[in-house]
């Protein structure tokens, strides 16, 4: 992941936001979607994605579904009700963070 330290704290929020927009998604799809949206700027590594997904599932924010696709099983993730509410909170939090950072790094623009 590029600038991994900076993006790391927001990985969960990114995943939840994507699921909010797309309904259900599987792991590989999430990595590809992020790559496409950010035009390759942000590349979520597999080693970070799956632990994050499993953690969110453990917290009850995500639900899983298995489907047979081609000749293999695919595990889909989607937001639970609790997850949907939490997404709103986390996005607001992220928004605040971005604004604060902007004020700090670029005080002129903020006023």
């Amino acid at each position: 992941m590029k600038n991994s330290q900076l993006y790391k704290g927001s990985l969960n929020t990114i995943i939840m936001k994507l699921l909010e927009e797309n309904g259900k998604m599987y792991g590989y799809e999430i990595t590809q979607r992020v790559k496409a949206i950010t035009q390759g700027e942000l590349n979520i590594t597999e080693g970070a994605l799956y632990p994050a997904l499993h953690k969110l599932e453990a917290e009850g924010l995500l639900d899983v579904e298995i489907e047979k696709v081609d000749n293999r099983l695919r595990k889909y993730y989607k937001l639970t009700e609790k997850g949907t509410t939490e997404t709103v909170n986390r996005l607001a939090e992220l928004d605040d963070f971005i604004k604060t950072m902007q004020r700090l790094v670029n005080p002129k623009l903020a006023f």
Partner: protein
Amino acid sequence: MEKKLTTEQIDQLYTFTRQHYVEWYDLQTELVDHLANAIETEWQQNPKLTFDEVLSKEFQKFGVFGFMDVIEEKRKFLQKKYNQIVLSQVKTFFTLPKIMLTIATTGFLYMLLKVSQYNGELVLLFYSILIVFVFYAIISHWLKRKKQIKENQKRWLLKDIINQYGSFAIIIIFPLNIFMRIFNHSEQFLNSEYAVGFTSFFLVLGTIFLYVIFVLIPKKSEEYLLKYYPEYNF
């Protein structure tokens, strides 16, 4: 035409994850699908690459630790779940109707230790039975697991945790020292009613824990699998 993975290659991917220490079907399935997607996408751009070439390229993206992070996170989660299961089962012995049995057993043991002149020996005997039982259960599971691996059966991480008895099993050994002392100085220790009461209760509590960990939960393991992996529709 798009190049797709054959069923045989999917099986190869399962073997690949197993070779990289992902021994559990639940985790394997997700990683196999991920690798398969990655390989098929890569083939769209470089159709000439062989299966093995693309696979090793994709695996590198997981980093130096390979699938380790993925396994660790999942294990932590399931271990927590398992501890919750154990505690909730133990708790049932302290609610009606089972609490009657718990109280009666503790009371019986209390009376026995109070009356018998061999109370020190009795305590040590009960405790030894518990320890022997733990070792028997651990060895028998170890043999079962070896057979499973040999026969290449599907394994589930939660079930493995259940059968490995979490980190609980080992605590039975810790109070060995205390019990030896009770045995050696039984006239002193087992004179006080509190000491007898505490020893009786401890032995009963230990038995409940071991019963839950080694008998009750393994017996119900299919039920728990169904609950924690509902998506697989056993």
